[in-house]
C-alpha cells in the first residue's frame, strides 16, 4: 500500500491532490424498505484488517512528509437492490474481494423478509464512506543542509 502511494505521488504534478475514498471501518447495516418504512434485518460482520493497513500506509506517507492532509468528509452511502439475487450477487463479490466471512445467515433473513412482502420491498445496505484529501508535498531532502560550525574565539 505504501508503494502504491509512492507511485501515486510520482505521477502527481507538484501540489497535486490525492483522494482516498473508501468505507469507514464500521459494520454495514442491512434492512428492507417497503412503502418508505425501513425494517432492520441485521448488521454485517466484516473484518477491518485491510482498512487498518490502509490507514497505517496513509499515516506513514504523511509522516515521511510526502503528503499533507487537507480535508476529510464522512457521508452515508446506501445501496438499494430489488431482489434477493441482486443482494446475493453483491454479497458474493464483497465477501470475495474483501476476504470477508460468509454471511449466509443474513441471506436467509433477507429472503424471509422479501418473501413476507411478496417481493415488494427493496434491500438496503447502509454504511458511511470517508473521503480524505491529501496534497503532494515536495520531497524532504534526504540530507539536511549542514550548519556552519561557529568558530571558537579566544581561549
Amino acid at each position, binding site marked *: 500500500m505504501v508503494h502504491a502511494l509512492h507511485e501515486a505521488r510520482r505521477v502527481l504534478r507538484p501540489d*497535486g*491532490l*490525492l483522494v482516498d475514498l*473508501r468505507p469507514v471501518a464500521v459494520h454495514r447495516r442491512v434492512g428492507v424498505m417497503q412503502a418508505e418504512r425501513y425494517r432492520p434485518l441485521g448488521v454485517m460482520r466484516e473484518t477491518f484488517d485491510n482498512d487498518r493497513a490502509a490507514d497505517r500506509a496513509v499515516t506513514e506517507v504523511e509522516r515521511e512528509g510526502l503528503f499533507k492532509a487537507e480535508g476529510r468528509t464522512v457521508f452515508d452511502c*446506501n445501496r438499494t437492490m430489488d431482489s434477493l439475487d441482486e443482494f446475493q450477487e453483491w454479497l458474493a463479490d464483497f465477501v470475495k474481494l474483501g476476504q470477508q466471512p460468509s454471511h449466509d445467515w443474513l441471506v436467509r433473513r433477507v429472503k424471509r423478509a422479501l418473501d413476507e412482502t411478496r417481493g415488494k420491498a427493496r434491500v438496503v445496505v447502509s454504511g458511511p*464512506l470517508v473521503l480524505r484529501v491529501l496534497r503532494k508535498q515536495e520531497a524532504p531532502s534526504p540530507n539536511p543542509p549542514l550548519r556552519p560550525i561557529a568558530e571558537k574565539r579566544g581561549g
Partner: protein
Amino acid sequence: MPLRVDPEENEMCALKGVTDWRRKRVLEIGCGEGRLTGRLAQLGALVSATDPDAQLIRAARRKLLQRFAKQIHYAVGKAERIDHPSESFDIVVFAWAL
C-alpha cells in the same frame, strides 16, 4: 430497477467539495466497472481509469456512455506500477483501492 449505489448522491456532493474537477487530469485507481469514473467525468474531469482485473475493465468499456467517450480512458493496471510518466496528473483517486 438494478442495484443502485448512493441514490441520495452524497458521494457526488462530497466530490464536488474537493475541488473544481473541470478539465483536471485524473487518474482513478481501482475503477472496477466504472461507477465512480462516470461521476468524475460528469464533474468535467478527464479520467484515466485503471483496475487490475481485466474482466472489470471490459465491463467498464461496455458500460461507457457515448457522451463520456472522449473524457474516459480505461486500462488494466496495478497501483504498485502505474504506467504513466511522472507528474502527469492533477489528481489521483484511490477508489476503495487502498
